[in-house]
């Protein structure tokens, strides 16, 4: 009897706790639904209709036609491929630079907060401001970058006007802006690593490089995967820099997917097809996220 009574009381307490938990999280969940889930569902619904800004209605159900059109569109495929290259470029370079700087900062004893403050400055800037500043810096005739290059004998470079160079310029500016995000996250991971395995490795005979390969990298795997995942998702969404610096040009050499979807929606006024493209992009990011999440769980 005592046992049964005890269990019953425990369940009642659990239910009370659960109700309290739901009550606490309800406002946040409602907001999340309104700003995330609703737009996603709305985009999905729109993508299945012929919805344009000229005829903004859901009268014509088109099924998967918008998806087929998008996938068959050469410009969409070009933008998707360009975005893939851009994402791999920025994430890999930011990771390599970020990890190297984080490793150095992890060894620093003095003035750490000062380094942190300096590193965080670009990250605190709005991407629009970053774009405007760099557009001025990189101006072919009046920019400081070309001026500095001229002082060491290099001719002027058309950073944003050359179809071969423009995408690399965007990549470099994005790295300047976002690399500190990578540094801060990786540094937090490095700082939280236990020191004992390193001491054991030193006694076992590992040099610094072997410690990095055999101890640091494997123990940092989870942090690295999470950092890469977050940065990757943000890189796929890159829009502001393109809008401010190149508007996708010259030609379509920097026409990343987010900007291309924007053009399809608000220049071509084809909301239905733009929604389909957004859903394809969302599916790709989700697939990647699920894959990395599973990988992360597997290595734990």
């Amino acid at each position, binding site marked *: 009897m005592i046992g049964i009574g005890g269990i019953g009381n425990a369940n009642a307490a659990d239910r009370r706790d659960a109700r309290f938990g739901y009550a606490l999280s309800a406002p946040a969940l409602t907001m999340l639904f309104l700003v995330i889930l609703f737009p996603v569902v709305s985009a999905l619904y729109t993508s299945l209709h012929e919805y344009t800004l000229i005829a903004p209605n859901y009268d014509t159900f088109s099924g998967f036609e918008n998806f087929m059109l998008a996938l068959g569109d050469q410009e969409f495929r070009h933008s998707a491929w360009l975005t893939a290259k851009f994402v791999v470029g920025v994430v890999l370079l930011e990771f390599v630079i970020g990890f190297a700087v984080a490793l150095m900062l992890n060894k620093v004893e003095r003035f750490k907060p000062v380094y942190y403050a300096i590193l965080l400055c670009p990250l605190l800037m709005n991407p629009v401001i970053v774009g405007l500043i760099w557009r001025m810096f990189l101006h072919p005739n009046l920019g400081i970058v070309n001026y500095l290059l001229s002082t060491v004998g290099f001719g002027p470079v058309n950073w944003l006007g050359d179809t071969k160079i423009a995408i690399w310029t965007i990549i470099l500016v994005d790295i300047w802006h976002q690399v500190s995000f990578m540094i801060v996250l990786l540094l937090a991971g490095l700082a939280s690593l*236990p020191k*004992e*395995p390193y*001491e*054991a*490795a*030193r*006694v*076992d*005979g*590992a040099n610094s490089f*072997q410690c990095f390969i*055999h*101890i640091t990298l*494997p*123990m940092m*795997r989870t942090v690295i995967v999470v950092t890469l995942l977050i940065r990757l998702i943000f890189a796929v969404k890159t829009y502001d820099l393109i809008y401010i610096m190149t508007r996708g040009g010259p030609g379509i050499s920097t026409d990343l997917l987010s900007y291309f979807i924007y053009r399809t929606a608000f220049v071509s006024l084809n909301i239905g097809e733009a929604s389909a493209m957004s859903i394809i992009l969302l599916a790709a990011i989700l697939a990647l996220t699920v894959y990395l999440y599973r990988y992360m769980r597997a*290595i734990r």
Partner: protein
Amino acid sequence: MAGIDLKNVTKIYGNAVVAVDDVSLEIKDGEFMIFLGPSGCGKSTTLRMIGGLESISKGDLLIDGRRMNDVDPAQRDIAIVFQNYALYPHMTVAGNLGFGLKLRGVDRGEIDRRIRAISEMLDIGPLLERKPAQLSGGQRQRVALGRALVREPKAFLLDEPLSNLDAKLRAAMRTELIKLHQKVGTTIIHVTHDQIEAMTMGQRICIMKDGRIVQVGAPLDVYRNPVNTFVAGFLASPPMNLVPGRLDGQIGLDAVTGLAALPIPEALRPGYASHAEKSVTVGLRPEDFHLLPLAGRSAPVSVTAVAIELLGPEVILVAELGGTGGPEIQARMPRDFLARPGETLTLHYDLTQIHLFDPATGNVLVRPRIA
């Protein structure tokens, strides 16, 4: 195997904090040495200096006669077992065991052979493919030992490796370590703050306090002949009772209460003669109180019971020496002993086991050693 020689070794952190102060100690080849002391006494720092994980501020460290102060930890050919084991969390047990050998370029076949041999010896064969997170505390401890053993080093440094185990497993591992030392015969330095580990495992104990060595000797010798009140109070549980007293003119002892008079045996008197009529600290071991007189070598002591602790095999009597208000002492009694709080009892103290200390310095007053 290796002899380890510390010559005036000092460790200073920053500019001011002296963690180890002028320590000199010779550890013989194949010896099982215990570093014992309370937290912060410098025992782990000394061990880490021997292992090469801490730099030596002053003095010399010699291993097999060769100065090792600036030699890399890996080149010292010494293995360390850490307090929290420090296993590589991402590697399997086999990976942990073989990592050091792999780094030293030992060929795959030899690594496998040694891993097999060690895993059989420590009974961790079925665990080889598991990761540390999937092991119990005792299993991790054995893997950490295995990682040290597999390298066949000159010496083992054990930094409180049993402190994270439960009491039963700790007792079992104590025996395992003793057997292991008998089997491999390698020099072992074992750091602990547990005096039972110190008494049962080591061939010699080095007791440290405030970064300095207080006493070095065989466990029983240190137990029977503590050099000062710190050692007397630190070793054994319950520790030696330390009560204020006074040597009277006839070289007898009169406790400050005037109620417990313990005459000093003839054989011990010469050493104490110079302290006649002076205050002393009297050291009385709990196990040297008896219910019945010992023929010709005990004196009656009146005590008032405060409490009794029933431990099963024995009873610890907490009592006030000389009656109510006297200094509190603990006495080890037979398992069937009973006393009510407030009850006055007469116990008999073994007079050959009296220790006297200088109350000002805490140092023992010279007397013939108890063998």
